[in-house]
């Protein structure tokens, strides 16, 4: 009980500190912007540790963070192999293919209003097919290795990307398009010089959403059949073996990989859409 109580006290103290930091004079420095969420995350972790110990939660239900960290450190080669299989081979390739396909489709749709009005409703219907249903089908079609995982990722990211690119291409104002007209610009000139750059904030919005979807898709697809390597494989087998510390180590890898992926996309966004008001400061 004392451990649980100290967890609550810790929580209050950390929150007080964060409020001070966030409203203090240094609130806008990069260091504080990093520090505040880190303190928050650390607090959660320590509370988790204290509560798990305090309430004597069995290892096979929820391991303490310290155990997870130990397992993580011991299993680096396995985690790395799983990461390469799932993230690099499955998620990244699927992400690239899916985004590229969405791009080509968006341009096709853009050229034909008929296609746009026909495809978008059908597309949103198809996008509503849940991954737990499509994943087994795709595993059946594309085999057990990373190709089927990539296929699942393609299916998952395609539509969000398509919607965003299509919306982005509509983003120009009437005036900007008229301007192109007065210069007698061709369709491709207008696309290349005006509409694609203008669409970039939307495109990156789609890329960011898809970056989290991609990893989740690749992991979930491994639940439905895989070679004996991969994050999803490891998670599901480890649950069966009651190696919950390993499960959580993989989840940590997933969270880190996902966040870093998201962060990288956000960084590139900063760089490409430097001109957008949301990126200027």
């Amino acid at each position: 009980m004392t451990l649980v109580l100290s967890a609550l006290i810790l929580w209050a103290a950390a929150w007080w500190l964060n409020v001070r930091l966030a409203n203090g004079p240094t609130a806008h420095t990069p260091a504080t912007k990093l520090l505040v969420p880190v303190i928050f995350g650390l607090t959660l972790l320590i509370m988790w540790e204290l509560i798990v110990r305090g309430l004597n939660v069995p290892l096979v239900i929820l391991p303490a963070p310290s155990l997870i960290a130990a397992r993580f450190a011991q299993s680096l080669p396995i985690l790395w192999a799983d990461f390469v299989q799932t993230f690099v081979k499955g998620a990244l390739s699927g992400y690239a293919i899916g985004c590229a396909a969405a791009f080509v489709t968006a341009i096709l749709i853009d050229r034909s209003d008929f296609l746009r009005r026909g495809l978008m409703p059908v597309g949103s219907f198809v996008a509503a097919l849940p991954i737990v249903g499509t994943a087994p089908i795709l595993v059946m079609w594309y085999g057990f290795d990373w190709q089927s995982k990539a296929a699942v990722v393609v299916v998952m990211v395609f539509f969000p990307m398509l919607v965003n690119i299509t919306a982005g291409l509509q983003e120009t104002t009437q005036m900007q398009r008229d301007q192109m007209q007065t210069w007698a610009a061709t369709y491709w000139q207008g696309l290349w010089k005006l509409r694609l750059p203008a669409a970039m904030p939307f495109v990156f919005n789609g890329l960011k959403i898809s970056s989290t979807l991609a990893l989740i898709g690749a992991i979930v697809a491994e639940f439905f059949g895989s070679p004996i390597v991969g994050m999803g494989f490891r998670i599901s087998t480890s649950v069966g073996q009651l190696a919950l510390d390993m499960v959580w180590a993989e989840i940590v890898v997933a969270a880190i990989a996902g966040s870093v992926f998201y962060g990288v996309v956000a960084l590139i966004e900063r760089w490409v859409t430097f001109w957008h008001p949301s990126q200027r400061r």
Partner: protein
Amino acid sequence: HSDNSVKLQLQWVTQAQFAGYYVALEKGYYEEEGLDVTILPGGPDIAPPQVLAGGGADAMLNWMPSALAAREKGLPVVNIAQPFKSSGLMLTCWKDTGITGPQDFKGKTIGVWFFGNEYPFLSWMSQEGIPTDGGDDGVTVLKQGFNVDPLIQRQADCISTMTYNEYGQVLDAGVSPDELVTFKYEDMGVATLEDGIYVLEENLADPMFKEKMVKFVRASMKGWKYAESHPDEAAEIVLEYDETGAQSEAHQKRMMGEIAKLTAGSDGSLDEADYQRTVDTLLAGGSDPVISKAPEGAWTHEITDEALK
């Protein structure tokens, strides 16, 4: 939540594999013992030991390798009854791949279930001296999904099947037995004990709980024996309890027929020789052992002795 309630966690979805319990429930055998039994179906993501540890169930069905592994992981589960005498696990291969015996597995692709069900296979392979990490000298292992597609689609040369379930599905897909080669673990001498009833060791210290389990095992075995002698009726009872509505009658009837063969030799009490063979097989498991030392106190005859008096 009355004191006479028992929650049983199954290993898999409702099917004839668990017919004995459903028959006991339907026929009122539990009721006769004064028990209020709830049967919780399992699924691909459910680890029965975890449910047991979390207090979600009083007893679970599990394969012995998985249960012993859990015991080593610090979850002291104890076998109190063993309704399944023999193993239904086998490897089913296409004959045209040229496989005639374990020595031919090298270089082939084999589908295996994981989630605790991979232990018998890994033990077997390490006894045969075949590495399981791919390459020309070893076998390439796939984590098999929930159906027999990998074999039918020829993504794997062999897959794991149960005599009572997947093997039937392969035949259902139109494959004739002549096209297949099968290796029963039982015949290979690497069989491990399957569906047994397990409870938490700490609970057994409680006489009330023990008494409840005695009644439970007694009624369950009565259910099993009834199911063995009335397979069609048992299958229909199972269908009644299947809430997904996905099972077919023909399939369940055939399954019940096969299950009856596995339970036939058991009165519910664990045969020590079978237990020893299971442990030996598991201990032989090479580089990645399922268990590292012979477990102690992993089973008890106290319940079955009392129940079968």
